[in-house]
């Protein structure tokens, strides 16, 4: 077994109403300490109202070589973008 602590990915919600955003990663022996460490490493400047941590090993990622098959077909379908609707000014964070 590796002596290194496992890697955790850290997600922070900066304010209510916004989604958690990936801010970086850190090492910790378990989830509780990962939260504590995330608080110390990533929220020193009043960044957040909520923290998520997930083991990096548990995140399933798409392969870079699948980029063409996964994303290119969306490129030429402009009608899928909601760019034709005027947005009211009062609506924020959309």
């Amino acid at each position, binding site marked *: 077994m590796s002596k290194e*602590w496992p890697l955790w990915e850290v997600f922070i919600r900066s304010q209510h109403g916004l989604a958690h955003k990936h801010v970086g990663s*850190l*090492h*910790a*022996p378990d989830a*509780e*300490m990962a939260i*504590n*460490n995330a*608080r*110390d*490493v990533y929220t*020193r400047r009043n960044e957040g109202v909520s923290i998520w941590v997930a083991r990096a090993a548990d995140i399933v990622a798409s392969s870079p070589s699948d980029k063409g098959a996964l994303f290119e077909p969306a490129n030429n379908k402009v009608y899928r973008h909601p760019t034709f609707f005027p947005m009211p000014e009062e609506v924020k964070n959309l």
Partner: protein
Amino acid sequence: MDAKIQYLLRQGDNAMILSQQLCQLVGKGPALEEDMALSNVALDLLGQTRMWLGYAGELEGKGRDEDRLAFLRDAIEYRNCLLVEQPNGSYADTLTRQFLFDTWHYFLLDGLTRSSDERIRGIALKSVKEVTYHLRRSGDLMVRLGDGSEKSHAMMQTALDELWMYSGEMFLYDEIDQAMVEQSVAPASELLRQQSLDHMADIFQEATLTMPSPDAWMQRGGKQGRHSEHLGFILAEMQFLQRAYPESSW
């Protein structure tokens, strides 16, 4: 009034000396995450120092601000308890010192949030949020390392046994502390001691550490200015610049 100034100096000096000690570990923590956490605690304590010493200087009214109080007093005028000036030692020593301090500190601040002095109440309300986290963190690490490997357990038990004699001074009230209790400025010693011992007993039990006897003989004197040899070295480093280049500033 004089008693209150002394009382404020004690609080400020505790926070300042522990902060200075933790600052010596910046860049030397066992892991990046621990390093950051220790510096955060040090910064919190430094912020609290400024509030305590600032208020002390104002009450004294001799034109000594927080900086003059920090940099131009000699060891004998320092009022911190002996616990905070004990060397960083191994990480087990650093952590155990922190946990013993945090426990007392948390329950003290909790009591001070009901102080009759409005300014002290304000400082306590602001600080207790920071110290709640300090206590949670150091307690968590006591449990992890106490109930960790054979080696970590042995190191934590040794650290606890060696530092224990410095854990009682904060609860030994002299006439200054007593005057503060009578004016309803500070919480009474008995309650504070009981709350602290209860919390320590819980954590030590979970950490599979043997708690030394609360009635053991305790070192004392720091609050009255009688310090161990360590404080002189801490101050020599901390005060060097102001001593060598008086009145220099940014």
